[in-house]
């Protein structure tokens, strides 16, 4: 008899079969994922979960029989005697022949892991303008040591390496050592004339050689060499800016929340570390926590520039653009005081856009309002003008929850990068 411990064998033997199944059912699964993500809370979007897909195309048909006369033998007779007639709806009713496992028409339920879920969720999304900003996006320059060089700045002289080379050269060229000369000079003191002249000549020759071969020659000098290497910036910060003035309804906030959620999911996939900064504003802006951001009461006028200024300050104090990928998403109903337009526009184009990877503006409207009917708001007009001037802004109008996903999809679609790359 053998006993084999299989517990340490590599697990997930079924992984490949599972992937085949998911690939085969991809269209269906993706649809189900989209649907279920619409009904979820922000944070849960990152969790896997159970989904249900219709089984068209996924069924494994067999010849099955149904109907006809049936005979069955059952245990546990209580009161029946031969010849009794049982009403059909009653207890004695037998069951259908074989309830096929999960093969019923109403759908097949199974659990997707977190990764599978998010993968499907984000399937064909990519970073905006990936081709153009590829380096700046996920990488920055870093220095690292790369051997020695014969030229460089004096600050980078490698003393040990230089001295070592000098010594090798001196040894090879037989540069006399000072002790040798001193020894000969000492010998001169007490010896006869003939020997003295001989020694004098020798010392002279040695001294000449000593002078000719320098202790450190310029060719010995080595500098530490540094190379610039692209260093991935593995962290991103996401700024959520939202207008919380009285004109923003709960519904609008909910729309905004969903958009932030998608952006967050997207960033967490892309960067090892993602921070979120919530800035809400009325006529003045403040940084708040998530709960206050979405639920805290606030009232006042509307000055978009205050939020932009706050974001700029925070970036300057906490998130060096060299170390952080900066993403910003602004949600608003589009109201802004007229006088603020100029300031906001200048802040955006001069301070914010140059350091951001991506700036999206989402204009939210009331339910039922068609996005096409929404009149252009003051903020929308302003941003549109900036865009026309070449500012890298993404902007969309949304009035219903189901529109969020398509909008996000549009904003990030891979196609765009090809269009941009083409001309």
């Amino acid at each position, binding site marked *: *008899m*053998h*006993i*084999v*411990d*299989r*517990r340490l064998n590599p*697990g*997930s*033997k*079924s992984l*490949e*079969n*599972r*992937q*085949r*199944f998911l*690939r*085969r059912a991809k269209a269906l699964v993706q649809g189900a994922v989209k649907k279920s993500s619409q009904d979820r809370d922000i944070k849960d979007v990152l969790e896997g979960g*159970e989904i249900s897909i219709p089984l068209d195309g*996924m*069924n*494994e*048909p*067999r*010849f*099955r*029989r*149904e109907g*006809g*006369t*049936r*005979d*069955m*033998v*059952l*245990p*546990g*007779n*209580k009161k*029946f*005697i*031969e*010849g*009794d*007639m*049982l*009403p*059909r709806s009653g*207890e*004695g*009713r*037998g*069951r259908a022949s074989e309830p096929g*496992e*999960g093969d019923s028409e109403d759908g*097949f*339920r*199974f*659990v997707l892991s977190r990764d599978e879920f998010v993968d499907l969720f984000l399937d064909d999304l990519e970073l905006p303008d990936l081709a153009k900003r590829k380096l700046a996006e996920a990488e920055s320059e870093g220095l690292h040591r790369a051997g020695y060089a014969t030229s460089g700045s004096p600050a980078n002289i490698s003393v040990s390496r230089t001295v070592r080379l000098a010594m090798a050269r001196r040894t090879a060229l037989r540069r006399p050592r000072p002790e040798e000369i001193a020894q000969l000079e000492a010998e001169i003191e007490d010896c006869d004339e003939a020997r003295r002249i001989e020694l004098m000549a020798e010392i002279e020759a040695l001294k000449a050689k000593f002078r000719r071969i320098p202790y450190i020659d310029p060719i010995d000098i080595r500098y530490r060499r540094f190379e610039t290497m692209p260093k991935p910036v593995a962290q991103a910060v996401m700024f959520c800016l939202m207008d919380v003035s009285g004109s923003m309804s709960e519904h609008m906030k909910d729309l905004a929340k969903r958009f932030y959620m998608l952006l967050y999911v997207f960033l967490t996939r892309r960067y090892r570390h993602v921070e979120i900064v919530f800035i809400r504003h009325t006529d003045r802006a403040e940084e708040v926590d998530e709960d206050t951001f979405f639920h805290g009461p606030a009232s006042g006028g509307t000055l978009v520039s205050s939020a932009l200024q706050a974001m700029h300050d925070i970036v300057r104090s906490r998130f060096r653009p060299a170390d952080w990928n900066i993403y910003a998403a602004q949600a608003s109903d589009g109201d802004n005081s007229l006088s603020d337009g100029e300031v906001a526009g200048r802040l955006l184009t001069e301070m914010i856009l140059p350091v951001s990877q991506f700036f999206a503006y989402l204009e939210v409207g009331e339910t039922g309002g068609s996005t096409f009917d929404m009149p252009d708001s003051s903020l929308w007009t302003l941003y549109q003008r900036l865009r026309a001037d070449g500012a890298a802004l993404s902007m969309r109008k949304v009035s219903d929850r189901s529109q969020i996903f398509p909008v996000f999809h549009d904003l990030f679609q891979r196609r765009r990068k090809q269009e941009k790359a083409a001309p």
Partner: protein
Amino acid sequence: MTATAGYLFEGADWDFTKLQHIHDACEEIARSELGLDVYPNQIEVITAEQMLDAYSSAGMPLFYKHWSFGKHFAHHEAFYRKGLMGLAYEIVINSSPCISYLMEENTATMQTLVIAHAAFGHNHFFKNNYLFRQWTDADGILDYLDFAKSYVAQCEERHGRLAVEQTLDAAHALMSHGIDRYPGKKNLDLRTEEKRAGERRLHEEAAFNDLWRTVPTGPVKSAALLSTERRRSLLGLPQENLLYFLEKTAPRLQSWQRELIRIVRHIAQYFYPQSQTKVMNEGTATYVHYRIMTRLHEQGRISDGNFLEFLQSHTNVVFQPDFDDPRFSGFNPYALGFAMMQDIERIVSNPDDEDREWFPDIAGTGDVMAVLRDVWANYRDESFISQFLSPRLIRHLRLFHLHDNPEQREGILVDAIHDERGYRRVRRELSRQYDVGYIDPNIEVVDVDLAGDRRLMLRHTVVKGAQLNETDAKRVLQHLADLWSYDVSLVEVDAADHVLKEYVLSPRGVAAAA
């Protein structure tokens, strides 16, 4: 072995030494007292996740890759996670050596139970039952599965995953009709199969010469000249093994597709005995574990506490809810099998007059194990029940027979109950529930119009008015047509030869031409 009182183990913990001792103790009893004859045992300890993996590949340790296994895995996993489904304590594979998987979570008592159940009960049944001896090749199965797995992978490389998947989908749909039900010329030898498959491929590669394609073959011998009778006998019709028929005669299949069909067919054949012996197989294993555990307890090698733990799970296993119980979902093969085995034990050792009248051959012969070993070797569920279900057990289980005729408006007729007039009828009907001849629809290939449009003609002989489910039948026939690559028709015919329904499907064209 622990020193105190000779217990094999104490408490719930086990380790590999203890497993070894448990196995040895069980083996001692199994061989000397029960006279069992088993394959060498291989016991493998696995985790819950590995158990789920095994579930989705029909319990086998290795299997070719196919999406449907992934689907089953996803399904089982969802149920398991929700707590809707417990996992089996063990899986045992009909192979030599006989592999039993034990879950690592099991307590020491459970491991003992499982070793007695699987490594001796099932193992003996696999080795001795005539169906398994006739239809399965325990020595070759693992090698054959290994071959199948790598062959499918190779085909995917050469011919593309899609083409392979389509062929396998189609073959799987016909799996239940890819079985030889009657012993043929020779036993299946999977090792030789595997070798022959390799040789066929080598020969093809070696003998390949593109020139042969261009050699004119001369006028085709007119198939029209063949009489219908002659044609049918040449093709071996009627043929109920659809996969076999396709493999041998489908006109446009590539050789690798034939090989894939062959693989599916062999695997279906391997599992065929299992579906016919559920009650007997589980009954045997349950009876054996009950005997071994009781004996171990008598010998003082299992403590009273652990024995109670065993009794509790044993009772759960052999629980049979009544028909009106919400938990009822048909007969529990463990319960029915175990009850019948115990009943036979009683008849052999301590019969009453009724038993003497019903079972003159075995009543009172005294040697329980000889009778049981003979039963285990020579019966399947259907014949076992029709021979050995005793009136006493029918009374005990309070069995009754319902006859449901949809034409009868008043309701369902109680046709027989557990009384003098009903015993034989109940017994006959119950054994019929386990007769594969009644369970699977009877579908045969009856003719091929080779001279004309090459239509493949099938016939479903309808029994008791149960016709095929239309949606599924169409899907299966579509797969069949894809493999056959010409039209396929199926007629459903009742006993009086009236055609009840006819299906005709045309191939989708892609799969076969690939």
